């Protein structure tokens, strides 16, 4: 997993570099300053899901399966909320502001960077859901805690990437 994270970081680095490189290079509008709103609430959701998954993994190690399942579902809910936030933002941008991936350079880089991250959140959520199904059928125990730890490592990585994306897109980029 550490190897995968290293490789994924390189992919994200390239997209972030492309985003930064093209900041302010768009020939036509809209610009980030005009259309972007900082998604603070959803960011808090995603970041706190890192905490819940951490404690979920810890409780599985101690064999508190019920606590684990509760925290795990909370993580999924928070991640889902974040995705909903992204979807809402995109809907607003596309239908109200008329910004699509082919509008200008900002659109191209914004949708690919945020989209790449959202794709990773989605992939993570699918894996989390698979674990949750196993949890409901009562198959999650201490012996699975190693696997859950690996999965939670991935989730932390997705969160950490969001910190970078957030900084680049919503703080520096405006």
């Amino acid at each position, binding site marked *: 997993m550490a*190897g*995968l994270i*290293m*490789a*994924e970081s*390189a*992919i994200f*680095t*390239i*997209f972030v570099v*492309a985003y930064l*490189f*093209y900041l302010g*290079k*768009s*020939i036509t509008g809209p610009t980030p300053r005009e259309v972007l709103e900082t998604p603070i609430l959803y960011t808090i959701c995603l970041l706190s899901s890192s905490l819940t998954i951490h404690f979920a993994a810890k409780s599985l190690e101690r064999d508190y399966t019920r606590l684990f399942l509760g925290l795990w579902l909370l993580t999924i809910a928070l991640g889902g909320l974040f995705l909903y936030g992204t979807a809402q933002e995109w809907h607003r941008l596309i239908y109200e502001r008329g910004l699509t*991936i*082919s509008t*200008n*350079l900002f659109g*191209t*880089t914004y949708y*690919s960077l945020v989209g*790449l991250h959202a794709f990773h959140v989605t992939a993570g959520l699918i894996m989390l859901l698979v674990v949750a199904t196993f949890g409901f059928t009562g198959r999650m125990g201490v012996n699975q805690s190693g696997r859950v730890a690996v999965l939670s490592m991935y989730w932390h990585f997705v969160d950490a990437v969001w910190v970078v994306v957030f900084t680049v897109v919503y703080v520096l980029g405006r």
Partner: protein
Amino acid sequence: MSSNAITIPGARIEAKPWVDELHQWLTTVDHKRLGILYILSSLLFLAVGGVEALIIRIQLMHSRNNFVSPEVFNRMFTMHGTTMIFFVAMPVLFGFANYLVPLMIGARDMAFPRLNAFSFWLSFLGGLLLYFSFLGGSGLYGAGSAPDVGWWSYAPLGARAFSPGHSSDYWTLALLVSGFGSIGTAINIIATILCLRCPGMKINRMPLLVWMNLVMAGMVLLAITPLSAAQIMLLIDRYLGGHFFDTQAGGSAVLWMHFFWIFGHPEVYVLIIPCFAFMSEIIPVFSRKPIFGYPVMVAATVCIGFVSMSVWAHHMFTIGMNSYANSFFTLTTMVVGIPTGIKIFNWIGTMWGGRIQFKTPMLFSIGFLFQFLIAGLTGIMMAASPFDWQLSLSYFVVAHFHYVIVGGILFALFAAFYYWYPKMTGRMLSERLGKWHFWLFLIGFHLTFDVMHIPGVLGMPRRIYTYEPGRGWDTLNFIISIGAFIQALAILVFVANLIISYFKGARAGNDPWDAWTLEWSISSPPPVYNFATVSTVASRRPLWDLKHPEDPDSRYE
């Protein structure tokens, strides 16, 4: 696992129906079989890429030749480059890594056998996807066409307006898919080396081959991924109307170059480091001496791994970067020469005073040493940016990197084939055919690529499909093409050797070369489970300790 039953080495195994056999090969997760599949698939693509090279050389044999049309010529050099790098060199090196790394560290298999199989099929099917473009490149209605925008696919050539149809899409998808395969294999190699070493195999006792494959895998993770990212961007440009590399909307063609070469240059080291690894195993065995300067060798490899990540823009001196960037990349490129030089001295130091046996693997290794040195020297010449301004995009560059890839990588690979073929099949390759192969290939290689430097200096640009008579290029190009055919002949001898020796070669036994690493301690070919008992290692040369209990290496470490 295809078969869990433990077969006793040496026992006769009943012949299975060929459908069963085929099914087992297709569904295998065994690292040895996957390694062989990797190697076989790359040999297949080597033949295809070789034919493309011959078509290029026939076309350039004399001025104003009409053997193929300009369009076909463009397809040929694009496909030749892409095939040779992505579907020959990488898979064959991954194949050897797959086969040898677990055996050398005394492991049962790779860390993730299923991921291993998945990665192989990704990269193999990626290759088929690339070649499907010949049929499907223009859709079903038109004649097929392969990608023809060069293996860099520089923007804006790769954009939809300049590369209509689907040929570039096949190129993009093939590289994306095989790139994911490479990432999977790299993760697998790293996890295997870090987690599955046998007792006593401390990290500073690993064979150098294992060390170098570790560095190679780390580089794959950091080098292939930028290419994947860039390919995703290109797909967004081509299908979703993005503007990453669309200069009319403010995008940048230069950014594509940067992304491509951030992949492209480390890639050269991804390919050459496993070849260093072969050298570091083969030269000591045939010099009958342990490797000279093991720790320095490791340090130099790691050093190359780091420095080579920051040299990419030396491919771009002519695009008009500022002088700071030019000086920086000139400097870093020259710095890479230092650890590489250390390695060459270490190999010579290993041979120095040794009792050298001139078997075929050693011949190829010595060829590698000389040719890689020359390739490095022309590399240093072109690292000087003013010199590069003069010769960039000329045949001098083509000669330089073929010197690296054919004179370096391919020679090292041939050495590896002759060295490990007995382990993989249980039969020795014929020495007589091997010597023919070596000398023919050596002569053909030097005829082609030594001479190729000269038209470059005389100003012949690369990627031209023909040229005017009377520029003094005709005779030189004719000689180059003759050399190419001699190389092709040598490859035929090699393939004949592989096939004939498989059926009629002398039995190899466990340890035909009297070598020192763990893979030679078990039968050839190794049983499915590799090691019947878990070996314990006390030094860098475990088999030496076993054979010479009176004077083991472990006493000196």
